[in-house]
């Protein structure tokens, strides 16, 4: 398949995925809150309402970085999807080191979320930005460990090779600690639930407290795009990506992405968030050793 066609498929994948993610999120929230009635397309309508409202700037904002943080975040989610092979021969970014490229995206997310909180020159947004960095940085280590573990049996840092290495057995079974740790990273990248240290309720919206109109809509869309990008990467690295019988690869990938997405959305509504200092300790003292263990087990399994 040509790259252009793959790019088109990816675009459709992304847009449909965002819609489904938004609906799923609404559905899950309502179900848990015990609310009945109301259209599930509410997020779409909300976006339309948001776009038709005024976009307020603050007193002395960093306008350029405000804009770049939103569009950049959107880009990173899309790049996440672009490194994922949609089928045996079709991938937008077919790089030998696509796992490292995804790692670079993760680190740029920290930069952009920080910028999003820094730019409006508003106290609560600033606190959210700095707090996110405290968690966003160390939690990347977990992802690096589990992705390296996933790369071991493939003998390659190419996501395509990682998918094909799972033909016999998915990594989620071979390396049972990997996916849960990686999903924690996903919660942090998409600013959700227990790892939402940027846009949380105790800061009345945190980094997005000053977003109105187009900025708010754009930021929510960017968060959704990161959710899709992340879920697709997780599905490829741990659930065998496009592999599957009968149906075309893209459909399998979509199913698996949806599964990961559902888990993330469910966890984000179900798990409580602890104060940041505690989470910082938890990452370094508990989760990081678990990631070590994951790598060790993966190494032993790969040699066996």
């Amino acid at each position: 398949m040509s790259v252009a066609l793959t790019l088109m498929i990816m675009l459709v994948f992304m847009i449909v995925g965002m819609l489904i993610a938004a609906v799923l999120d609404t559905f899950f929230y309502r179900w848990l809150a015990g609310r009945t009635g109301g259209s599930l397309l509410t997020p779409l309508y909300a976006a339309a309402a948001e776009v038709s409202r005024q976009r307020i700037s603050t007193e002395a904002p960093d306008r350029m970085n405000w804009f770049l943080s939103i569009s950049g975040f959107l880009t990173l989610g899309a790049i996440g999807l672009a490194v994922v092979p949609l089928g045996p021969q079709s991938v937008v970014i077919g790089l030998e080191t696509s796992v490292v490229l995804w790692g670079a995206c993760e680190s740029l997310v920290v930069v952009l979320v920080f910028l999003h909180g820094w730019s409006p020159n508003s106290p609560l947004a600033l606190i959210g930005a700095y707090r996110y960095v405290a968690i966003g940085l160390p939690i990347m280590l977990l992802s690096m460990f589990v992705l390296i573990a996933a790369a071991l049996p493939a003998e390659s840092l190419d996501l395509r090779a990682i998918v094909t290495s799972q033909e016999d057995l998915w990594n989620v079974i071979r390396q049972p600690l990997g996916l849960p740790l990686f999903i924690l990273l996903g919660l942090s990248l998409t600013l959700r639930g227990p790892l939402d240290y940027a846009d949380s309720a105790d800061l009345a919206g945190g980094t997005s407290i000053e977003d109105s109109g187009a900025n708010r809509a754009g930021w929510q869309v960017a968060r959704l795009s990161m959710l899709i990008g992340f879920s697709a990467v997780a599905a490829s690295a741990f659930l065998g990506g496009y592999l599957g019988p009968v149906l075309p690869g893209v459909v399998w990938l979509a199913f698996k992405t949806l599964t990961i997405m559902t888990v993330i959305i469910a966890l984000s509504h179900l798990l409580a968030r602890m104060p940041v200092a505690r989470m910082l300790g938890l990452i370094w003292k508990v989760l990081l050793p678990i990631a070590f263990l994951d790598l060790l087990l993966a190494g032993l399994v790969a040699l066996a």
Partner: protein
Amino acid sequence: MTDIAFYFLSAIAIWSGWRVFRVDSMIRATFALMVSFICVGAIALLMSADYIGVATVFMMAVEMMVMGLFMVMFMMNPAGLNPMQMVHQYRLSIGAGIVAFIGLTVAVLTTDLPHNPLPAGRDTMRDLGINLLGNSMLIFETAGVTLLATMLGAVILSSRRGRFGVSDEGAIPPGLHPGGTPAGRKVEEGGGHGGHGGHGGHGGHDKMTDEKDDGQGTGHMGHEMADADPALSAGHTGHGGHTTGANPEGADPKKPKQEPAPDPHEGHGTKPKKEH
């Protein structure tokens, strides 16, 4: 096509590198530098050095983030709300820039650069890995020890709770005999605020009262930079500390006079931009 991409990326890299010294906001400066590095990483991609290129982006994003945190933490006027001059010792830096440029150009032009194009499809990652586990194993393990030393150094220098107790009090050197008076200099009174005890000449800790003064009242910057993190100030190449109280305007006569301290960063101050 590759040539166009190369020139395009180089142009952005140079332009954003230049912006680092022209913008007022520390955050913009930091991330302009990051953009510059990203472009260099992309150029490495063009040269089929996939891993080096992508890893550059990865590392630089993280490192610039951390550098940005420290820049904002220790720099006066971190957001550049008042325009300022990022370059200090103007003539010297121009001279140094020209010398460095000529030196590098000469080096590049006169060196006999190796010319052995990689066969297409060669797995450079594998070569790198084999080398790390083979010939370069000693280097690799030494890097581990070096990084450990870096970690320990960073922790010792910047952590408040150190081996010798809380650093506010722990900055006092141990006595010559157990339980004896601290060796060396006398400890300042009211050392509860201390921590910068060793840097003398920072008058006016009763600053709460003149907090709202118009002037800058921020003569401590240089000290803290030295206190909290000497390791990092090396990373701030060029725009390290600030002069103590070198503000021509807005100095409030009521304020305790700031003594210029004998301070490693002296003379490196970021000064208010000259009036046109």
